Every structure is written in C-alpha cells, then in structure tokens.
C-alpha cells in the first residue's frame, strides 16, 4: 500500500496496484459498503428535495462565476480577513505552504499541532514535513487518525479509512495505544470510537496550534467554512493559541447566500445527509471579550498549479467541492478502492485532477481507468464533465506518444475503418457472419485470436445475426421516414 512519505505517487503502477487490490480480501470486504450505502443514501435525500437538480445548476453557476472573477474575489476576501484581524499568506507551491505553516508553528513554539481533515494538506504532504521539522501533527478526524497510525494516505476523500475493516483498526489501536489495559474489549466500532475519543481529547487540550482545511471561503465576509460530522475540526480550531486554515484558491464563493446554495448540495451528495452536523463559519481571531477561540487566525492560500488550470480545458475541474459522489458511484472505484490510484485524489475526480497536479506522464493510467459509464457526471453536484475531461487526457497522452504501442496500433487500425463508414459496415458484417458461423455450435468462444485479454476471464459471445448498425438501419427503415435510412448515418462508435 502507498506510504505517506512525501506522497510519492504510485500512479504509474496503477495496473499492478489494481491487481493487488482485487486480490486483497480485506479491501474487497470493506469496499462492499461503499456501493450499497453511499448511493442509496444520496438517492434518498436527493429525492426528498424537489429543488435538488435546480440547486446543482445554481452551484455550478456560482463556482463558474467565481472562477471567472477569481482575482477580484481573492482581493475582496483578503481585505475582509485582514479587516477582522486575520492574516493571509499566499503559497505558489506546496513547499511554500509547508514553510509558511512551519514558521507560524515555530512562532508559537508548537510541539504538537492538531489537524482537521484537509485534502490540501494531504496534497502537499504536510504531516511528513512538520514531523521532519520537529512538530508533531495529530490527525483528529477518526478516519484520518486511523490512516495516520498506519502511515497511509486516504483511500477516499470523505471517508479516508473506508478501505479498512474493524479488525484491522483494532490491531492498530492495540499496537499504538499501549498505555491502555490489554484485556479491553475493542471488538465493536462503538468501543473503537470511544477509545479514539478519549485519546484525542487529551491531544485537543494540549495542542499549541490547530490546522484545518476549508470547504469554502466567503469573499463577502472573509470567512472560512469547514463542514464535519465529528466536531473534531471545531475542537482543532477553537482550543489552541492559533488557527491555521490551509485552503486552495478555488474554494472561494462570493456571498453567504452562495454558500447556502453550495451547502444544500454538499452534504446530500457526499454522505446523503440533509446537512452535515457541524458547519462552522470562522472569521478572524478571538475578539475583545471572547472567552475562547484562537488568539491568531492565519489563512494559507495555495495555488499549486490551479491558476494555470483556469486557462485550459480542465478549468471545470476547479468547480469541484470534494464531495466524493463521483467515486461513490464509480464501478472502477468500487472494484479497486482508492489506494490503487496511487495518489491523494482517487476516483473520477482524481483521474482528472491528478494528471494536472503531478503530470500526465506519471498519472496516464488514471484517465484510462474508466468505463465511461457516465455516472460520475450524472451525480456531480457542480456538473463537472468528468468523462469528457478523462477523454481529453487520453487524447493528450496519445498525442504525446505516452500510450503503449499496442494501444496506439489498435486505435490506428480501428481509426482507419472508422473514417470509412461503408468499408466499416462491410468488414464488420463479414466479421460478424464469420464469428457467428465459427461459434454456431456453442454460441460462445472460450478463446479467440487477439482477444485473449477478454477470453482469459470470460467467454466471448458469438454474434447472433446482423451487426448493430445493420439492425439499426433496418429498424429505422421500418419505423421512420423512408428517406432517412442510411444516408445520415454517423461515423460508427468504438466497438
């Protein structure tokens, strides 16, 4: 499994990762829950809200509007943060963000820092960096805490430990929590949670600095917003002397009303809740007369390539609100889980975002790990055209000659016929007849030349008559206007 050390991507080994994942019995057991729970829960709350589809349009429009004016909203946001006593830091790269955060920790003489769940912190490998520099980071989201004990990266953006069974978690707790009685019962999720609550409560109270991410930044008020169910993010940011918000620049929304629109689609798309338990709007440090809250409030705004993404065909990806619906509905994710993707962002959103962030040369397998079933786009709360963008990455990969020779020659071969529709129809009709004839006895093939990749795992069915296109033409000839048959036939789709 991937180690967190600097988050060296194993994405180039996606195929090996996927094979290992398919053979991992614990993982396959854990993944069973994803498909069943997340999909049904989202469906249920979406059906309860007649305006859900209209809210998705609204959410998309708000993010698109903000991206189109991102420079101005950033300036407006910064003014408000400073006005209310907060500090804003800009980080071009992940290394810049690491250094800024370490400087703030050092200013407070921090020995331990608590952390709320932050995918951006995972993206920049913050924990390892802090640890190497003598500051101990403690993840406080239960799932993040568990994977930190295992030195893993999250396997899901909202359920980081979704790949683990309770027995594995029990083993980790017994290995690490050695100060607790050996004969304690940890067989149930409730006892595991109670133990983590007790252990982490001490850490919350002892931490010098708290670091959280942000689901949204509100330009109107200079506010950062976190959305959690556990309450860990709130304890992380309320108790220490300083609160550091680490957020990427595309988290901005203009106003509180815009925030309300996005909140209505976020929890429903992510966990299938009407609202997450805690939505917290934080603005600046403790005020005069406040009895609690952090004395300093810092926001670290990370770019890490996003400002350049605004120019190209992957700009729509910057609308992403990290709900995880795309991976919850992805048949490839269901089969291999998140770690196979080899970096911090898995599933369809990762297949599009990872090549932008670490390069298509390293992440080329990811946009290919799709059946193009389109379910990710169907459920995306901000309607990101994920399949289209995966196709764009495949084109780039092809153009840069990064795809393997067999794939290239296969596509070239198919392309030759695809550009000649009559020849395509003629050749496929002959091929279908030959296959039908050869397979007439059993109705299927258990091995076939050039198709061993298929027939190694399942039989190839013998064709049962004319090709799809021939049947389509015949059908249209019967039912539609007589003139329409054949003449406007489009180029055939991929086989």
């Amino acid at each position: 499994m991937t180690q967190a050390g600097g988050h060296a991507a194993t994405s180039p080994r996606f195929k090996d990762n996927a094979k290992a994942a398919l053979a991992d019995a614990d993982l396959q057991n854990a993944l069973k829950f994803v498909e069943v729970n997340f999909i049904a829960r989202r469906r249920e709350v979406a059906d309860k809200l007649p305006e859900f589809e209209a809210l998705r349009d609204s959410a998309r429009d708000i993010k698109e509007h903000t991206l189109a004016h991102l420079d101005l909203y950033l300036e407006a946001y910064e003014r408000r943060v400073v006005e209310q006593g907060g500090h804003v830091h800009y980080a071009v790269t992940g290394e810049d963000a690491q250094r800024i955060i370490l400087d703030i920790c050092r200013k407070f003489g921090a020995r331990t820092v608590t952390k709320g769940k932050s995918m951006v912190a995972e993206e920049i490998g913050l924990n390892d960096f802090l640890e190497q520099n003598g500051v101990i980071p403690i993840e406080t989201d239960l799932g993040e805490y568990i994977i930190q004990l295992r030195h893993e990266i999250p396997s899901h953006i909202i359920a980081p430990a979704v790949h683990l069974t309770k027995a594995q978690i029990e083993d980790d707790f017994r290995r690490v929590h050695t100060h607790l009685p050996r004969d304690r019962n940890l067989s149930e999720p409730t006892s595991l949670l109670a133990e983590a609550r007790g252990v982490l409560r001490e850490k919350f109270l002892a931490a010098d600095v708290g670091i959280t991410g942000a689901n949204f930044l509100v330009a109107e008020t200079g506010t950062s917003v976190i959305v959690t169910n556990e309450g860990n993010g709130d304890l992380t940011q309320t108790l220490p002397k300083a609160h550091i918000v680490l957020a990427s620049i595309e988290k901005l929304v203009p106003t509180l009303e815009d925030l309300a629109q996005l909140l209505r689609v976020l929890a429903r798309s992510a966990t299938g809740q009407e609202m997450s338990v805690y939505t917290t709007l934080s603005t600046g440090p403790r005020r005069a007369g406040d009895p609690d809250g952090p004395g300093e409030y810092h926001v670290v705004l990370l770019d890490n390539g996003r400002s350049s993404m605004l120019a190209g065909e992957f700009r729509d990806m910057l609308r992403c609100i990290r709900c995880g619906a795309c991976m919850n509905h992805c048949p490839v994710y269901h089969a291999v889980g998140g770690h196979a993707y080899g970096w911090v962002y898995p599933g369809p959103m990762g297949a599009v975002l990872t090549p932008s962030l670490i390069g298509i040369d390293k992440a080329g397998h990811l946009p290919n790990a799709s059946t193009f079933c389109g379910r990710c786009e169907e459920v995306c709360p901000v309607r990101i055209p994920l399949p289209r963008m995966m196709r764009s990455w495949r084109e780039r990969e092809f153009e840069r000659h990064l795809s393997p020779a067999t794939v290239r020659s296969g596509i070239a071969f198919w392309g030759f016929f695809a550009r000649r529709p009559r020849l395509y129809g003629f050749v496929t009709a002959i091929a279908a007849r030959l296959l039908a004839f050869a397979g007439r006895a059993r109705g299927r093939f258990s091995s076939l030349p050039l198709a061993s990749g298929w027939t190694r795992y399942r039989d190839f069915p013998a064709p049962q008559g004319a090709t799809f296109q021939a049947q389509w033409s015949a059908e249209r000839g019967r039912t539609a206007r007589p003139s329409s048959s054949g003449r406007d036939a489009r180029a055939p789709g991929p086989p």
Partner: protein
Amino acid sequence: MTARDVTARDLILATIRRSLGVAGTEAPRRLEVTTRLSAHPSGVVPARGQLPPAARLDLFVRMVEGAAGTVERAAQAADIPAAVAAFLRGHNLPLAIRHGDDPLLAEVPWGRAGTLEIRRGASDGTDLAAVSHAFGAVAETGTLILTSGADNPTTLNFLPDVHIVVVNARDVASDFEAVMARLRERFGVGLMPRAVNMITGPSRSADIEQTLILGAHGPRKLHVIMVGDPSRPSGG
C-alpha cells in the same frame, strides 16, 4: 506580510489574470463583483420551509429529530430550569450545567429547579452538560445557529457530553437565507462574529465500516428547548 508573500500574491494574481485573459482593471468586471457582493442575490430557496409559523415549527422539530436530536417545547423562559433538570435526571446525569453570559440565560430563574449547580463561562473540558442560547434556527434542515462570544462561548458547543440549546420559537426561520439576513442585521454588512456554528444533531462518525455512531468528538446528545407559544410566534 513578508516580501516573499507579496511576491507570491502578485505572482498568483498575475497567473490568474493571464489565464482568464484579463488585466484586473476592467470596469464592467469589477462592477459585476462589487454588485454581487453588495446585492448578495438568493439562489434557489427550497419550498420545504416556506410554511405558516406553526407548521414551520413542526417541520423544525421533525428535522432535528431526523438528525438524532431531541426537542421539547416550553411556553416561557421561566420553564427552562425545570426542563433542563428533567432532561438531566432522565439521563442519569449530575444536576450541573455551564452557560455563558447570555442575557436570557442569566435571567432564567435557575433556583426553581432545586439543586441545579450553575457554572459560568467557557468550558475547560470537565463539564458534562452545557446550555446555550441559539442566535436562530433553520426549519428546512433542523439546524441551530450559534454565534461565538462571552454570551455563548464556542467551547460549550463541543466539549460537554450533553449540549442543551435554547431557541426562541420566533427565531426559527424558514431557510438559511433568512438567517444570513439576520446575521448582517446584527453584526453589520460584511462583518461576522468569530464563529458561527451551524449545528444539525449530535456529533457522529461513520469512519469505521460506515457504521454510524453518535458522540464522536463533540456532544453525544443534543437537546433543544424551544421557547414560546408555538401557535403564535411573533415573527422571524
């Protein structure tokens, strides 16, 4: 701000502008942004919460209960102590609470509940139960809105095992947009208290085998006391 930050800031803004093909000085663009920020148009507001007062309060109660919280109604503020004491007794908890300097909670006749021990101010983590007075609530989702400050310290929302929240029936709004408008009214346009906590049910986690368990890091129980005549809320 250090010199490094100024450079990084300028670089990021310049890259954004190059990507968008703008200079950043275009008047129509700037106007669009300032207009949006000052007009803050509402988007799609669900019909669900747009109900007459009594039905709206019923919806709020249903939604809180749907999120695993509990609600009881009290006719007037003077009934709060008895309700709090009864709740604590019912859950075999010590008769002790902590609350902040909130005027409503300060005036409540706590003595009527007998031997209820009252502590004041922020929590240090040793309190089992806290009482807060909510700024408002949203019927649409059963969400409580709490604002930080000496009146209702934020630590009370998260450290105790049991969080009891008093909300005036007239402060239960149909939707989030109404709460946003009230925040502007109370704190000023563009200004916010340090923290606005939107709370929908008690703390929970489903990180272990997706089994939902209440009481992760925050309160295990969330109990709402809705004060005022439910049939005649005076507005909001």
